[in-house]
């Protein structure tokens, strides 16, 4: 009897031991990141080697990380919030979890339109949402704008992701800003009418649908095409070689650009280290690595862009909108998707 109670107690003690983790005493910076890329890990390690500052990371989905920082309140250990999508960066700012910051290094490295106008966050890399089309069945002359994809001539020729995808929400948010809510609704409904199948899968699955002959055109982020062309899966490479890319709206409002960035958390306990890390990531070698490993566009204009991206041309016209609009119009975009029947 007593022995059994002892066994129970020792199990409890074991549980508590598992729960306790030694506290770190060395200089550190705490990052809450929604970027899940392998290359980030490498860059953090390089940063630690160079500065001796340890990088602690919690990675997760952006809205959940924002919610976690909010709930942790003034005792949150978070120093830096990193994520993809301008709308999410803006919603972090609006949620009041960030503080403005600036440094001469940051100011010099990042053009004004790739950071928050009040300094709450700064861009690290950008990506364009482009039209991907079948080399076999579509001639680039047939393509012009995002808006044109809603034209009945594309009936049964488009595949898209589900409207839960942040990247399409942000695209629609900008269309609402540029064309107005009514036109944006007509656009969403037009796309739905032109769908070759119900919305499903991720970005790569849309390109595969084109390779499979299900559809002729789709919307994708630039880096996914880069990664598919360099995939370890030979079938995926074959699929990517069947499609080509098109930068839409060159003669009108410009191609939709999205951004990944970092913001200093309001109650950051290691503020200086956090700024050091941001400056490190904006420095030329790191910017070049981000681009070559992940096929993203560097924000630092002096940094070298990956050869593949260069071969696509880097001087395309982009939407010159404040990224804050992505966040401000997000709910409207979701509602327009719902009303337009884009599942």
């Amino acid at each position, binding site marked *: 009897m007593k022995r059994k109670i002892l066994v129970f107690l020792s199990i409890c003690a074991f549980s508590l031991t598992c729960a306790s983790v030694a506290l770190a005493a060395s200089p550190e910076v*705490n990052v809450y990141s929604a970027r899940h890329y392998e290359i980030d890990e490498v860059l953090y390690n390089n940063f630690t080697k160079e500065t001796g500052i340890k990088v602690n990371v919690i990675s997760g989905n952006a809205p959940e990380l924002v919610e976690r920082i909010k*709930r942790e309140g003034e005792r949150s250990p978070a120093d830096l919030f990193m994520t993809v999508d301008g709308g999410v960066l803006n919603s972090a700012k609006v949620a009041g979890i960030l503080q403005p910051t600036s440094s001469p290094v940051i100011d010099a490295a990042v053009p004004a339109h790739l950071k928050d106008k009040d300094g709450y966050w700064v861009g690290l890399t950008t990506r364009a949402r482009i039209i991907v089309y079948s080399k076999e069945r579509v001639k680039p002359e047939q393509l012009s704008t995002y808006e044109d994809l809603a034209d009945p001539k594309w009936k049964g020729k488009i595949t898209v992701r589900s409207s839960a995808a942040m990247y399409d929400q942000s695209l629609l948010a900008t269309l609402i800003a540029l064309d107005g809510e009514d036109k944006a609704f007509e656009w969403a409904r037009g796309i739905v009418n032109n769908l070759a199948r119900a919305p499903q899968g*991720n970005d790569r699955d849309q390109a595969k649908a084109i390779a499979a002959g299900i559809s002729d055109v789709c919307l994708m982020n630039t880096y996914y095409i880069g990664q598919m062309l360099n995939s370890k899966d030979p079938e995926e490479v074959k699929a990517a070689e069947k499609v080509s890319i098109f930068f839409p709206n060159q003669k009108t409002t410009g191609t939709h650009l999205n951004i990944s960035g970092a913001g200093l958390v309001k109650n950051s306990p290691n503020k200086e280290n956090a700024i050091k890390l941001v400056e490190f990531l904006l420095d030329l070698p790191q910017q070049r690595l981000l681009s070559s490993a992940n096929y993203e566009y560097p924000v630092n204009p002096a940094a070298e862009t990956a050869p593949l991206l260069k071969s696509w041309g880097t001087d395309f016209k982009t939407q010159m909108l404040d990224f804050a609009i992505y966040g401000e119009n997000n709910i409207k975009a979701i509602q327009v998707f719902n009303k337009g029947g884009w*599942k």
Partner: protein
Amino acid sequence: MKRSFSCIRNPWIFTHRLSVVSVSLPFIFLAIQAAAPANENWLHIRGWLLQTYVLDTLLLTLSGVFIASMIGVPLAWITCLFAFPGKYFIEWALVLPLAIPPYISAYIYYHLMGYTGGFQAGLRTFLGLDVNRFGFDIPPMPFAVFIFAVTLFPYVYLIVKAFLKHQSASLYENTRLLGRGAWSSFFGVFLPLMAPSIAGGATLVAFEILSDFGVTSHFGIHTFSTAIFSAWFGMSDADSAAKMSVMLLGAVFTLAAFNKLAQRTLKYRIVSSKERALLPRIPSRRVGLACTFFCVLVLLFSVIIPVGQLFSWLTLSWNQELLPRLWQNARNIVSSALAATSCTMILAVGTVNATRLFPSKPNLALAQFATIGYSVPGAVLAMGVISLFSFISRAGASFGIHDLFDISRTTAMLIFAYAVRFFAIGYHAVESGFSKVGNIYGEAARTLGAGPSETFFRVEMPLIRNAIISGFVLVFVDIMKELPLTMILRPFNFNTLGTSVYDFAKNEIMEEIALPAILIIAVCAAFIAIASLLDKSYSAARPEVRRGER
């Protein structure tokens, strides 16, 4: 006066109250924080989406539960009744699908059936056939139902099998003696008897489907869980999310009530002094082969194909440099899962025994309430847990204890959340163990002068040992597969095998998920194997039971 005093001092009642309070606290904090002003967003959701949510959730859950039962019940029946070729291996292997998280299975099948997957690529390469020309496509809803059915049927299989194994020998013999054939005794006698255990397994399957996010969001199916996500995290609208959470909880309570009702109205008490296990008999060659074929077919779709695909990815992505990191991730999740499972099982055993010692209505209702953690989406529970721990941490700081629950640095928050979420699994396992044993042994021991605790540890715990072990394994395996709680509540630099899979899948690099996914499945399979060995050696060590069987 004396009674209430003893309630506080009684360790069983204490554990019971502890479970109830632990589970309620996160939800109370949620309720407090969700009291935001109403907005027009809710009108939008109600006007445009609610109907879809309700219909899709119902359709998905009902068809998932139905198909899972259609697989699980026949499997339990034939493995108990017949000694068909390969039975001993198959009986064990049929638990393995529990080791494969539904979202991983979904990724795998979606890829496999997609354009670059093995199915279509094979047809193209070897037959020059492009099925897309015939309009081949993957319909999301049936596909999701298929995924849930092949990954979740073991819940039904295990529970029904446990019932059949213990109660059916004399019944089956009698029905056959009275002239019923095998089919007729199944439909006429056993199906009604099995109804409560089928309902028990089906409820677990339904809860899993209701709280799923990975599979449904991948296929663009709008259920309540995805709706709560998109309202809360997409539209930052905690109020609408809370409203839908309440609706989901309502559905869950209705389901639990139906289950209880089914247990009560359908339960036939089998009064027999000697409950013997059914000895499987050797069937005719044709029947035997048919049984083997059916089982292998189920195993093919639930285990062999997914694991085969993982290994084929592994050949593309094998990278020795990843091993140390994944090893660390495996250690992280295994140690947390062990700790959390131990806590969960202690709470579960204590709570169930408390309701047996003090079976008042409030005690039973409270214990039932404590199982709700299992049915809400993980992310919703996670937010409640963060609020709770932040509050404790702030309260600690105001009393000058600054390191009390430095929540971002320890796994305390995560382990607590696991225990709250999976308490239901442990609770149901222990409860079903007790219901098989009944009260007679305990009453005999009490009559002979043993106290309640001594009775439990010396008499009843050895009797329900198997139930505790199987509860432990189920909880452990569920934690290994868990994703949303781990993602949201983990401390710094704490990665698990599940988060590695998620990271690669999120970046759409499917071949890289192979190694961590295989490790998850291997750890779970090893655990299931150890448990079934313990089970066997335990039965072998009880000669009186074996004598009874002969």
